[in-house]
């Protein structure tokens, strides 16, 4: 059938991931996209996936897509806050919406529309293609009970979250990746945050820092994006555009499902290995919330894009968290109590 052949031209793309293959859940998102696209096009549209550093260093994936070096990448939008703080909203900002509200805002609210207008100014078209769910607040060598305990804590924490906790006296330290473990072990730094139980377990931080704090208020539902070079995307046949969009949506759901399945086991193993779980206190969360609001007011005063998109997200979040109190919160709390009493 020549008509089909015409609508299904042979195309091969390269996708660079910002993650190593060892992060199988996150890197797996890129592989999901490639597999789905190949399957849906009968192998006519192939996407070759590369891990961080194979062709492009992890933190420059979006640059490479903008420049047309590769057609596509799988990365965190907030790695590029140095170009424009608006990039942070694409992944997660402190006290942003949780994973479920994030999906709502992107798919049905204005999230995708507004951010893609912004990404277009960098030659990018973004699709949300993965979520880790709320992350853990990181590994601490000592207990953090009060805001005062935060003063002088040397912590490896990146991006806007670093700016927020810095206001409370934390010393954000971006030391080399390979130096983190030995530095945490010997107390050169006091704390480090990474992802959640499943990924953190592999790095072995539990051996050198006992207290595992939760939640990562700076990553309530962080998104992993697939960015496509806008020109190259628009040059695709309509069918291929839709297939990419669907493949990303699949990757988005599947990554969340993997984390929801793997984290509960990993957290038990970690506790079995001596990890002590600790919640951040109300005082700390409130102080950080206040600091975050100051940071946002600060950025909004200087950056139109940030202000516009941030305010839209806040409005969505406000309504979402009202409804959540009636729905998820009540139901979940009841179910959690059943879980604790062993009735589930």
């Amino acid at each position, binding site marked *: 059938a020549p008509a089909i052949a015409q609508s299904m031209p042979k195309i091969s793309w390269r996708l660079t991931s910002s993650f190593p293959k060892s992060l199988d859940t996150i890197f797996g998102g890129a592989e999901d996209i490639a597999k789905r696209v190949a399957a849906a096009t009968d192998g006519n549209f192939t996407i070759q996936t590369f891990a961080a*550093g194979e062709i492009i260093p992890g933190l420059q994936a979006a640059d490479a897509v903008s420049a047309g070096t590769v057609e596509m990448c799988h990365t965190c939008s907030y790695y590029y806050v140095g170009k424009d703080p608006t990039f942070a909203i694409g992944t997660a900002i402190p006290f942003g919406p949780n994973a479920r509200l994030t999906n709502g805002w992107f798919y049905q609210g204005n999230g995708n529309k507004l951010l893609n207008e912004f990404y277009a100014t960098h030659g990018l078209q973004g699709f949300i293609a993965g979520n880790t769910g709320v992350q853990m607040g990181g590994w601490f060598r000592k207990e953090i009970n009060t805001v005062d305990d935060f003063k002088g804590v040397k912590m490896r924490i990146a991006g806007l979250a670093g700016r927020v906790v810095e206001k409370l006296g934390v010393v954000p330290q971006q030391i080399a990746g390979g130096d983190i473990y030995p530095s945490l072990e010997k107390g050169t730094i006091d704390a480090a945050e990474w992802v959640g139980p499943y990924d953190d377990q592999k790095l072995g931080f539990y051996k050198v820092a006992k207290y595992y704090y939760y939640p990562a208020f700076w990553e309530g539902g962080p998104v992993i994006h697939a960015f496509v070079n806008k020109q190259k995307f628009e040059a695709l046949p309509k069918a291929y555009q839709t297939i990419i969009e669907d493949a990303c949506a699949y990757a988005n759901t599947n990554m969340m499902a993997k984390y929801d399945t793997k984290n509960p086991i990993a957290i038990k193993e970690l506790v079995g290995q001596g990890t002590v779980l600790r919640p951040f206190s109300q005082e700390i969360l409130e102080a950080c919330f206040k600091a975050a609001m100051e940071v946002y007011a600060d950025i909004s005063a200087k950056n139109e894009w940030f202000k516009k998109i941030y305010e839209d997200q806040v409005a969505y979040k406000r309504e979402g968290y009202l409804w959540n109190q009636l729905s998820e919160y009540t139901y979940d709390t009841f179910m959690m*109590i059943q879980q604790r009493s062993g009735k589930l």
Partner: protein
Amino acid sequence: MFDFGIIPPAMFVGMIIFMLYGFPVAFSLAAVGLFFGLIGVVTGHFEQAFLQALPLRIFGIVSNDLLLAIPFFTFMGAILERCGLAEDLLEGTGKLFGSIPGGLAYAVILVGAVLGAITGTVAASVITMGVISLPIMLKYGYNPRLATGVIAASGTITQVIPPSLVLIVLADQLGRSVGDMYLGAIGPSILQIAIFLLFILAMSIIRPKDLPALPPEARGELNMALVWRVLAGMVPSIVLIFLVLGTIFMGLATPTEAGALGVVGAMALAAMHRRLSWDLVKQGMHSTMHITAMVVFILVGATCFSLVFQGMNGGLWIEHMLSHVPGGAVGFLIFVNCFIFVLAFFLDFFEIAFIVIPMLAPVAQSLGIDLIWFGVLICINMQTSFMHPPFGFALFYLRSIAPRSVKTTDIYMGAIPWLCMQLILVAIVIFWPETVTYWLDHTPKVDPSTVKIEVPLFGAPGGGNQMPNFGLPPMNLGEPPKINP
């Protein structure tokens, strides 16, 4: 072989020809990469825009904080060498063992091991060792092949002895903790040192002329006075070693920063011995600048090569060749080690770690191979990538500092027995996994189904581990029942 076109294997051939031509390695590597880049654009493997990845990769190299170790440790070595403190250490050890044939060689191996426990980069270690010990060994009539071989090998061993850049990169690629990799490498490092020492012992029996004992007038009479003088001469360097290690253990510095503190410490020591001068510091920093630029520029050239290699589907080609791996853990390991050994002729360890290891790790895991053991094994094997004639980086570094009287062929021939010893260790570790696993943490893994986690609820009474209630009354859903831990 040619399922992915003829170009990926042709790139290796091209690399050999370009390098043998004799123009500086860094530019030859860049040129061969870009030459094939041109071919790639013409043959439609990629567009010209693909090569726009190069500045991003170069940015990635200079922003890699771990590479700071190269100038730091090189500078430290330069100061120690110029102020004569390092020579005191080596000559001292050599004098103590001077009456035995091969005394200096034993000293070089031991000093290499100690240096290996401080630095994590082969470049810094080989250069420091070569500058300090090669002239002395040649002066006392050592066979140049033996002298250069023992130095290159003892310098290369730093990558197996923690701290180590190679182990860090491998841990990252295998998804294991750096700490476990370091523990696992302890046994093999000790074994490797033992094998080296035994080889010198054997050589001193078979061919004593190649590694003569120091003449009595050079070593002095072995009495308490000599021992005392030698020890006194060794103290400063030993203090420095403990200072550098100590700053890491105290939590004062990251392993990379420890190198910088080592520089400050070396200058302080030199000053205490009244051997510090501005001239000495200036010479040191300028030669460090040259070495750093030379070494890191090789990485810049190599990055051009490997980008184009990836663009030519070289990664898929290697993956395809690995798809014929024989079954069974031992068969797999033997095949993989042979494969990496051959690949190490052409690619440096960074490239191997990034291209090959991620393909091997899932297979190894499915065969039930412990990934720490696997990683340490690969690390030992990759020592050889520094020692392969004619492209081993350790041999380049040694060539760049050896006097003209030492022929390049001597350096190449001298490396071969040590290469074999490194492979012997690979075999030992394959058939005797306890060399690695003995040192690992053996606390039994907890069955997750037996672990109970008690999460405090909002507003529930409790101690320090209490969840805040955020100012709301507690949810009135009944007091949660107590759960036994």
